[in-house]
């Protein structure tokens, strides 16, 4: 369990959110769900990317989210939107239309190709555990120019192959998306966890560890994956958060700690 550490007494869960937010640039159109993706996007908006635009699959476009929505149908996620529309408008006329810069996802299983499973553990026809299903995740993974995945780092979440590919990463290798006919063929995919940052790029197309959370040893990350990832020759440590970043996160983004636990225990 990651404990508060570093000069400002942050948790790795908090730094995970801040690190994920660093991949959102000012002006980006970001398709988000609730939970950590919404926390990270709201943080980006309130810090380095004030003009980043949230779109939410249930219909809100460019809301000024108030803390802390717990559903894509929560009134807090509709606050001061410029348009409250329909799923077709967001998933069809924005996402499939190709206007989403960053698609933000979580997942029960993420495999070495960046594929995501949110449908079933075990056999589809005889499930060990039935999960909620795709929702908009398959659509986000198919059409976003860049894919961000944020998740707690647990070994069971990182199999070599997903039991079921709900949302496509690189499928089965470098040409996977192209062969399948997906509209976005080589999106950068970045996975940010409370232990490390990993990515898949045009070149690699399988998961590569590129950063470690402060104080985390590489061996611990390797032990927490069910496959052998590449390790970047330029492996670095995730940049520490500033006091101001932590203040924004704690006071403005999730002040009542719905998702961010102060005691160091990661939320869902």
């Amino acid at each position, binding site marked *: 369990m990651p404990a508060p550490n570093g000069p400002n007494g942050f948790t790795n869960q908090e730094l995970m959110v801040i690190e994920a937010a660093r991949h959102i640039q000012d002006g980006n159109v970001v398709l988000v769900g609730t939970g950590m993706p919404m926390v990270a996007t709201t943080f980006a908006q309130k810090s380095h990317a004030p003009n980043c635009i949230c779109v939410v699959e249930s219909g809100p476009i460019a809301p000024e989210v108030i803390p802390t929505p717990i559903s894509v149908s929560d009134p807090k996620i509709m606050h001061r939107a410029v348009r409250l*529309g329909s799923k077709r408008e967001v998933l069809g006329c924005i996402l499939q239309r190709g206007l989403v810069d960053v698609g933000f996802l979580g997942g029960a299983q993420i495999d070495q190709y960046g594929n995501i499973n949110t449908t079933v553990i075990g056999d589809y026809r005889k499930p060990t555990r039935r999960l909620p*299903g795709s929702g908009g995740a398959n659509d986000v993974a198919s059409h976003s120019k860049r894919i961000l995945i944020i998740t707690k780092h647990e070994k069971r979440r990182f199999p070599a192959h997903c039991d079921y*590919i*709900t949302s496509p990463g690189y499928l089965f290798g470098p040409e996977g998306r192209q062969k399948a006919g997906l509209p976005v063929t080589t999106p950068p995919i970045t996975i940010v966890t409370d232990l490390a940052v990993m990515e898949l790029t045009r070149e690699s197309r399988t998961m590569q560890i590129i950063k470690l959370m402060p104080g985390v040893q590489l061996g611990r990350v390797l032990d927490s994956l069910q496959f052998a990832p590449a390790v970047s020759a330029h492996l670095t440590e995730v940049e520490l958060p500033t006091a101001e970043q932590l203040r924004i996160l704690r006071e403005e983004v999730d002040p009542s700690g719905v998702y961010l636990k102060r005691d160091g225990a990661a939320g869902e």
Partner: protein
Amino acid sequence: MPRSHMNKVMSLTEAVQEFVKDGASVGLGGQNIGRCAMAAVHEIIRQGKRNLTLYGCNLSISMDMLVGAGLVRRCESGSGNLERFGTTFCWRRKVESGELEMEDFSHLAMVSRFLAGEMGLPFMPTKSLLGSDILTYTSRGTQKKFEIVDNPWNPGEPVVLLPAVNPDVAIVHVQRADPMGNLFIEGFSTHEPEMIRASRAVIVTCEELVSTEEARRHPERTTIPFLYVSAVVHQPWGAHPTSVHRYYDYDGDHINHYQACARQGGEAVQGYLDRYVYGSKSFADYLERIGGPARLAGLRASMQSMTRIP
């Protein structure tokens, strides 16, 4: 199509009797914890309509309660869950046990299928789903889930075709409706515009029944014109315990209570249904059982703290 264009106001009992048949395909409105047509679902459960097929994007507590009551044969949707409040437990249990057929799509895929339905088309293309296992696995009972065709304008490019959905009846809860069935939806509208227009009959419950003059004064603001609507039922609080934008917040305590029963299953679900659905003579009676005016005032105040109330 409606019997009369002018007045479709009736009781929920009449509406469900007339428009929901055993074996029907039913489109469910709302999403997660927002604007689910709970009053209509209670009435379907009380009338014991069996062997239903449910269509939607995100199916949540409305679907789960119908499944818990043993009325559902099959679902086609993009997801089943209540997000922070957990999954849809009755649904999960019956999918895992094989008692419930589940056909998986993505949310855009379901929207696309309703879009085909509302446009009078047999299918709709999409560029989602490609490469995923949504195209690998199909449910028992599915004849033909999709077709992959070559783009005639770019040979070699695959495009997925998905079959239209035209539910026998759709069930939605909206903020305002007039007696003709013109609908005014506030907040997100999810998949409802397409689903409503695709359905062969539509039962609408509403917070407020307004005059048709409202539509004629600002006709750009009418979300859905009356042509698709079969029954208009005035049912304030009809989405409880889910929220209605600008009217009331979701009731987290009651959702947690339902979820605790649903997770446990068996007698706990039966107990919930006995107390809140079968045991309620009407939705007004239900509203008393969940806490009456005091609790409802709190939900309204919570919404008021976030947004303008009309």
